[in-house]
């Protein structure tokens, strides 16, 4: 892309060089591929879960607490429900909530962070004091109290965690904005007479995005774990529902009879969090190298 392309000037060496570069671009590492595959499964399970495993919630007390078998891949729980099928069903709450939290925190963080970083002054001061306040609060405890007051439920937990993670995005976006706003390209935009919002969203935002996006992946992983933790405490998803955190909590009673009851959802959570992190790193690398740099 950076090579002068005049017709006929393409030497064989140049062609092989380009091909090599394309190949290298196309091939992410094995870990990234595995992460993408796993997350794709979660997305499919999250969206089509009830269609894939229509009998997941059917109880069969005669089949309770069975081990692994070809019929029940991860065995059954105390009510005779297939653990694997319930883990598949649980992908929905593991996907929607964290996704909403990551997106929400990302949007809030970008708007507030750009404002605080670029405009500063009194609005910036107010935003940053709010960020400081949120940092000072012990997150999960606040969530527990807030959900207790607001009456609980999955979506309340989602909203509370979104507001709790937005300050991290805000702070990061602000820091990058401050670093970027002294650069000549921003000053050039100012001397053109562009409006503040245009400088912020057309010029600064694209250059802030790589970090903000990778932060969004991190928030997704945190949100997943926090939501599961709240569900584990009985504050998120309603008891009995196929949520990975709830399943973990409810596995306690029969943990010794069938450890798979805990291992299944636990591994699902861990793999999801790790995969999101790996993918976040990869996306950051791609975004920040792809023609984005000035040198």
């Amino acid at each position, binding site marked *: *892309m*950076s*090579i*002068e392309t005049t017709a006929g000037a393409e*030497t064989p*060496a*140049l062609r*092989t*060089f380009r091909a*090599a*570069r394309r190949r*290298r671009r196309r091939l992410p590492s094995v870990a990234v591929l595995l992460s993408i595959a796993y997350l794709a499964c979660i997305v499919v399970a999250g969206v089509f879960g009830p269609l894939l495993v229509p009998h997941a919630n059917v109880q069969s007390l005669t089949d309770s607490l069975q081990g692994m078998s070809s019929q029940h891949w991860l065995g059954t729980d105390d009510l005779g429900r297939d653990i694997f099928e319930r883990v598949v069903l649980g992908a929905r709450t593991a996907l929607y909530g964290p996704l909403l939290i990551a997106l929400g925190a990302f949007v809030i963080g970008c708007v507030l962070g750009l404002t605080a970083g670029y405009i500063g002054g009194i609005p910036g001061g107010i935003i940053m004091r709010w960020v400081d306040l949120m940092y000072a609060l012990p997150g999960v405890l606040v969530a527990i109290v807030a959900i207790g007051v607001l009456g609980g439920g999955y979506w309340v937990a989602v909203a509370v965690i979104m507001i709790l993670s937005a300050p991290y995005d805000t702070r990061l976006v602000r820091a990058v904005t401050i670093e970027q706003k002294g*650069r*000549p*390209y921003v*000053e*050039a*935009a*100012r*001397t*053109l*007479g*562009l409006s503040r919002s245009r400088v912020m969203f*057309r*010029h600064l935002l*694209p*250059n802030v995005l790589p970090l903000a996006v990778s932060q969004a992946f991190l928030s997704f992983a945190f949100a997943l774990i926090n939501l599961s933790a709240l569900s584990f405490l009985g504050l998120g998803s309603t008891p009995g529902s196929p949520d990975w955190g709830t399943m973990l909590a409810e596995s306690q009673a029969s943990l010794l009879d069938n450890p798979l009851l805990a291992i299944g959802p636990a591994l699902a959570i861990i793999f999801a969090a790790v995969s999101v992190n790996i993918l976040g790193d990869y996306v950051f690398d791609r975004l920040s190298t792809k*023609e*984005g*740099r*000035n*040198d």
Partner: protein
Amino acid sequence: MTEHASRLLDVAGLTIGVRTGGEQRILVDGVDLHLDLGETIGIVGESGSGKSLSVRSLLQLLPAGFTATGAAQLSGVNVLTASERDMRRVRGRQASMILQDPFTMLNPLMRVGRHLEEVLREKPEYRAMSKPERRAEVQRRLEEVGITDPGVARRYPFQLSGGMRQRVGIAATLATDPALIIADEPTTALDAVTQQEILELLISIQRQRRMSMIMITHDLRVAFAACDRVYVMYAGAMMEAGPSDELSRSPRHPYTLGLLASEPPLDRRLARLPVIQGELPSVRDQQVGCRFAERCEWATPDCTQERVRLAPIGDDRSSACLRVDEIGRELAARFETVEHGAVEAAHQDLSAPVIVALEGVSKTYGHGNGAVAALEDVSLTIRQGQAVALVGESGSGKTTLGRCLVGLESVSRGTAEVFGIDITRGAKLPRSDVRTWRSKVQYVFQDPYSSLNPRMTIGQTLAEAGRQAALVGDAPVLSVEEVLERVGLRAQYAARRPSALSGGERQRVAIGRALALNPELLICDEPVSALDVSVQAQVLNLLNDIRRETGIALLFITHDLAVVRQVADTVYVLEKGRVVETGSAQVLDSPSSGYTKQLLEAVPRTSSDWLGKRSQMGKA
């Protein structure tokens, strides 16, 4: 060439490659050079010429992934193949390096004295000394590089000026008493006056200690003034080599000629600066034969048939030009015309309306005792269509002034009118006034590598400026293609991103963006100082053309007096925020202020008396 017994360094066929993406790329191709004891050689080249890589390979200091082949004997050791253990003995004791930016070379948490002690500790005689003796030794070493204030040893690097830091860097390099000093752009980060002092210091030390020196620089004049012999490199290959005075008088390679010619002269204004057409080839194009061929007007098909190497042409000179015998006379004739190129008189219309009027303008940063004055009581006038130069060293406030005029900084005191708008009111100005101000005054930044948004294509950048022009809208809006054409770029550039452009091309785009608003005043802040010489001339010509075509006024902010001579009608010399001299460009011929004289003295000149005079003054 004759006394081989005194040969310190002999390099033959040095080739440096790097492996990327399974492909071997050659960055330095078959370099030959030699250096005698007590001799100083210069390696001159533009960015990407491979000059730094070549000397780094001699100390095995190449970045990971780079490999060097060929032969290089440094006092009998083959430094390309020697083991790391042997190299540790070579580095420091045999050869030491001085880097471009001494700030990155000095540990910010170590006091100056500690730096020297660290290096001196390697020497047994130092370890045998008592504590007071050691302190005296450190002091003596600092005095050698001209630091007489004993307090300096207790300071941290950040408490020193750039010149002082470079002196400390030199002292640290010399502490191991090496036989060879490699100075990699030792003065590039310094102001002209400091540059002259540091070069004189290096030369006097080199003579006193009878050391050998390799000086790497992009500035031909510096190399000619400071070195016995000069090697000219281009795109990884040696082009020409020879004694400084001969090379500077009669280049025997089209590239050397081009380099010498595109250097703007200080003493006269040329109607048009000679340029080397085209741009540096990309390292990805591994062409066969002479690398300069595609930019060379004397090139024949033979030039790209087979590899060319430096070949002796008599008088201790060598050239890599295949046709050197055929075109020698032509080169000489061309050089003659360059030396006596068409001269243009500075012309200005002093009855034109005033567009910028500054009266007693001051700018201070900070409050109370910590306040720093960047500008003090500056008065300046710019008339329509006039080209004004603001000259000064770093810290003189010239950039601050330019930024005030465009609204990137605010004026603290004084009256300042730009196109009739009182810019001291800053944020309190009505919207319409701000819009007029922005559309009439535009700014071109020094660093073309960061002044374009890396995530926008050239077309997007220029279109945005065009839309802005439409908003203000009295003049016809230029399309992206028209803007590109005006700054001499093809329309295909619109689809590219800044990362795909060279420095010169980016600066053209930045100029185009500013022109898209049809401004009446263009402020250029060191627009060519980040560019290679051959590209610098192209951009200066472009600015002069634009001025001739559009009648735009220019405010040229620069430290380079030769550049000032080429573009300016009126000159303002700034020192520490004050205007110390002003007048038409003839100020450069007969300066009245001592500071201006000092600046003129410090401009690098090819003749060796540029450095000699002052070192004699220093001894007296």
